[in-house]
């Protein structure tokens, strides 16, 4: 066989910029899902099974947040569930809202609300100081 360099017939550059975003988003859903099983189950047992939400008072919350351990636990739960839920809804919106303008509006409202919740939650968790 003759050793020739073939032409680039039919061969084209990948048409895309090559962002890995969708890949990592997909992977993140799986990893965060794994953590959420532990964190959300832990949260549910502590708040709703071992304790009763009706009896939770200031003292209970303050005592929990005296340790950086529980603050970290709660912040991880907050961050992962908001990121996971936001990305999940982003996917749902991309799939189901065909109109570009409506989709942008929905997506930006979602990002706005999620960011607001995340900032508020983080603020409370970091800035909380026990009174009395």
């Amino acid at each position: 066989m003759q050793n020739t360099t073939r032409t680039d017939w039919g061969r084209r550059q990948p048409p895309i910029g090559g962002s890995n975003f969708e890949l990592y988003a997909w992977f993140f859903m799986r990893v965060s899902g794994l953590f959420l099983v532990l964190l959300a189950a832990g949260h549910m047992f502590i708040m709703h099974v071992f304790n009763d939400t009706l009896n939770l008072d200031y003292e209970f919350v303050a005592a929990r947040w005296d340790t950086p351990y529980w603050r970290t636990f709660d912040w991880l739960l907050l961050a992962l569930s908001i990121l996971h839920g936001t990305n999940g809804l982003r996917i749902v919106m991309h799939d189901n809202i065909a109109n570009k303008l409506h989709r942008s509006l929905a997506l930006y409202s979602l990002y706005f609300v999620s960011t607001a919740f995340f900032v508020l939650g983080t603020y409370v968790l970091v800035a909380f100081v026990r009174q009395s």
Partner: protein
Amino acid sequence: MDVKLRILRFNPETDRKGHWEEYNIEADPDERILDLLHKVKWFDDGSLAFRRSCAHGVCGSDAMVVNGENMLACQVLVKEVSNPIKIEPIRGLPVIKDLVVDMETFFESYKKVMPYLVNDEVPGERERLQSPEDRDKFEDTTKCILCAACTTSCPVFWTADTYVGPAAIVNAHRFVFDSRDNASKQRLEILKDVNGAFRCRTAFNCTTACPRGIQVTKAIEDVKRETLTIN
């Protein structure tokens, strides 16, 4: 036996949307859906348009929706489906006439993933060798006949026809996992876009629809995982 055939007809010259027409046909339970369509076209209404070529499940031209599910009309017998039999064109692609759809976007997506062997190295004395184990990695996806049953059963494709669709990913899989091929990375670069493999939401419609029994959803997951390992 008597069969009631309901076909979603569309004539682009007179209709603005499809309408159902009913045909009463005498058929043998062992006849194929395709035979019923032939009976209508040859003896009742010659204007009925549909595609078929091989009539034996090889060419992939007669995928259609039969009683709500995608299948090849030449592969399904009258006794295997319930009566009346409802036939529609496959969904998500523009209808040209009756059961004939415009496959242009489908083949565009197919071409996008470079569905051919890329290897510039000179092969050995005779051919490029491959172990049976390596061959097995993509055996399943070599069976594709490009009928579009999978892609047009996909709910993501119905709403977003920018999605490359399962068939294109199956045909990328065919070469990505071929040890003789050198362009896996390029194919995966193409498929990691928003409209590539990660657009798949694992609905499994494609796996149910494939008349060749290809594990389509599994092939797509293989591609997603492989993309992770190269990045």
